[in-house]
């Protein structure tokens, strides 16, 4: 039997091959991941819940299908699921106190599709509360930590957000891939911060049914994986028409893996000049230029394009998203599910429940949303933002008349430290999404691919933006960047109780840990 570290370092594609060849069983592959989670989750807080028994049962069922030579596209592949996805019989809270103990009697369409394809659920992953945040620090279950650290520095870094548990777990080999969601950059920014691949599909490509709603006209689910090919494979199983989501796209899902083989020769790649923002760091500028050179060398044609309303996307987003959130989050009232705080009448019960159940960032956004939708302010804020959104989408339409795909940096900086940003000024944190939010506003597909290492020794990502429904082209271009960038390495394991000695029995490893006074016994 292979060592845990060998099994957990596989890609989804290579694990599928190994399973079908009989090199290892799905049960072994799943157990290897459960062991790695058991040893390392305390250090990273990537999982807020593990479902070990269910995982082993699902893996055994996969082994039967594999022996019968009837494997699904993701048969036996252990995945982590962001806590935003409803999972039947498994606690789903969006990492909010207000959904305490909520156990959905149904499964989201995306997770249903994944289980139908044979995937195995390892557990639920940490995220910013209701996906509102760019650092995973707003989670009710506490921050998730990035497995990467700066050179010679033990400062805990954020894994990005809101899908921080997904990006951290994938980077730390605690799953082969993870589901994630992206409303303003929540798949792509965490991927960039952890050296992983994050794909946000076209709005409507993946069903939103059973995904806890944040901003319905912007929300879109997608995968976080370690390779572009894995992202292509996973998206193929997640995507598809769903009559339960009225905004779901009724169009065939192409074979994304096949599309990858096409390469980028002759592809027209647009470079939007407005993304060269004031104060952009040299390393981001250099990374972007390097990406341009790589695509050119692979046979693509580079074209400068203009997206004149780029700088207004973020402020428009911070009107549209909170407005939709304030409406979506009205359902958390202490009546139908989750937390209830008593009050002298029903109004007081609502107000007490929502005061106790929502964290500070969620409250801020609900209040901003309520304000911009309120009588007297609607036209000045909400309607104005929707008009600006039209102009942002029009910019992209015009650019895509000239090019097939756009190349930009994913984030303005590498991963920052826990507690470093947004303490005094929420806008400081919002600025993280400056390059990603435009894509959600226009409903386009985007992917972040690891492309380099920062001066601090942490990963950096490049983003490719595509035409509506054209995930295939951003995957092709993403693959070219991935190939050119080569192996960027993996973070040194500092977080596991067993510190890399995966052969050591779990119990012995636990005993070795120093007992801290006042610490809770598990």
């Amino acid at each position, binding site marked *: 039997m292979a060592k845990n570290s060998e099994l957990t370092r596989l890609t989804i594609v290579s694990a599928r091959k190994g399973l079908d060849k009989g090199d290892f069983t799905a049960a072994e592959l799943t157990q290897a991941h459960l062991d790695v989670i058991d040893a390392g989750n305390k250090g990273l807080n990537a999982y807020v819940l593990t479902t070990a028994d269910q995982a082993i049962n699902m893996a055994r069922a996969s082994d039967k299908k594999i022996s019968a030579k009837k494997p699904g596209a993701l048969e036996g592949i252990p995945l982590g699921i962001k806590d935003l996805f409803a999972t039947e019989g498994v606690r789903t809270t969006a990492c909010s106190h207000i959904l305490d103990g909520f156990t959905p*009697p149904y499964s989201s369409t995306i997770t249903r599709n994944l289980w139908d394809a044979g995937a195995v659920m390892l557990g639920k992953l940490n995220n910013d509360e209701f996906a509102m945040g760019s650092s995973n620090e707003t989670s009710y279950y506490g921050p998730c930590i990035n497995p990467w650290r700066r050179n010679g520095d033990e400062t805990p870094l954020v894994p990005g957000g809101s899908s921080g548990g997904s990006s951290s777990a994938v980077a730390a080999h605690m799953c082969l891939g993870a589901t994630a969601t992206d409303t303003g950059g929540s798949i792509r920014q965490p991927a960039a911060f952890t050296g992983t691949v994050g794909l946000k599909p076209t709005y409507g490509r993946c069903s939103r049914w059973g995904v806890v709603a944040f901003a319905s006209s912007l929300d879109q689910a997608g995968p976080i994986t370690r390779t572009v090919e894995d992202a292509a494979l996973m998206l193929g199983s997640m995507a598809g028409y769903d009559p339960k989501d009225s*905004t779901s796209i009724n169009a065939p899902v192409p074979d994304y893996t096949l599309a990858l083989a096409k390469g980028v020769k002759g592809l027209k790649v647009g470079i939007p000049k407005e993304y060269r923002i004031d104060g952009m760091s040299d390393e981001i500028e250099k990374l972007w230029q390097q990406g341009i050179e790589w695509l050119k060398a692979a046979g693509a044609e580079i074209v400068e394009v203009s997206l004149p309303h780029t700088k*207004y996307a973020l402020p*428009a987003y911070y009107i549209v998203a909170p407005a939709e959130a304030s409406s979506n989050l009205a359902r958390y009232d202490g*009546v139908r*599910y989750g937390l209830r705080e008593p009050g002298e009448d029903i109004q007081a019960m609502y107000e007490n429940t929502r005061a106790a159940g929502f964290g500070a960032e969620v409250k801020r956004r609900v209040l901003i949303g309520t304000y911009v939708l309120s009588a007297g302010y609607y036209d000045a804020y909400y309607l104005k933002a929707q008009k600006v959104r*039209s102009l942002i989408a029009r910019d992209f339409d015009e650019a895509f008349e000239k090019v097939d795909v756009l190349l930009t940096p994913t984030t303005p900086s590498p991963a920052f430290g826990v507690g470093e940003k947004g303490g005094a000024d929420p806008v400081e944190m919002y600025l993280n999404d400056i390059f990603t939010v435009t894509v959600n506003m226009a409903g386009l597909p985007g992917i972040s691919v690891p492309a380099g290492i920062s001066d601090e020794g942490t990963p950096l990502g490049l983003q490719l933006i595509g035409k509506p429904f054209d995930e295939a082209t951003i995957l092709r271009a993403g693959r070219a960047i991935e190939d050119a960038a080569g192996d960027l390495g993996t973070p040194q394991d500092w977080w596991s109780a067993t510190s890399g000695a995966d052969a050591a029995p779990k119990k012995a490893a636990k005993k070795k840990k120093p007992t801290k006074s006042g610490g809770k016994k598990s």
Partner: protein
Amino acid sequence: MQVDEKIVRKIARLARIKITDKEVKALEGELSGILKWVEQLEEVNTDGVEPMTSAEHQPLTQRKDEVTDGGIAEKVVANAPLSEDNFFMVPTVVE
């Protein structure tokens, strides 16, 4: 737009979130800061521009208006903090 204590309390009431006096003070500053920042949209000429109300690249699909699900009252109330005979229980609304 500078929001003052009165406005913060008013929108908190509209949003049904109880806020403490200490929170009111902090929110005044934070909300004013966010609103001031988003007001840069005023620079953009949007004369004659239609508001974008959906990110759909296809027309919404329609289906027949018919019952497709139901008869699962027990599941519907399964997560309720308080229920009785498959009804949600709330404090008295009408005396």
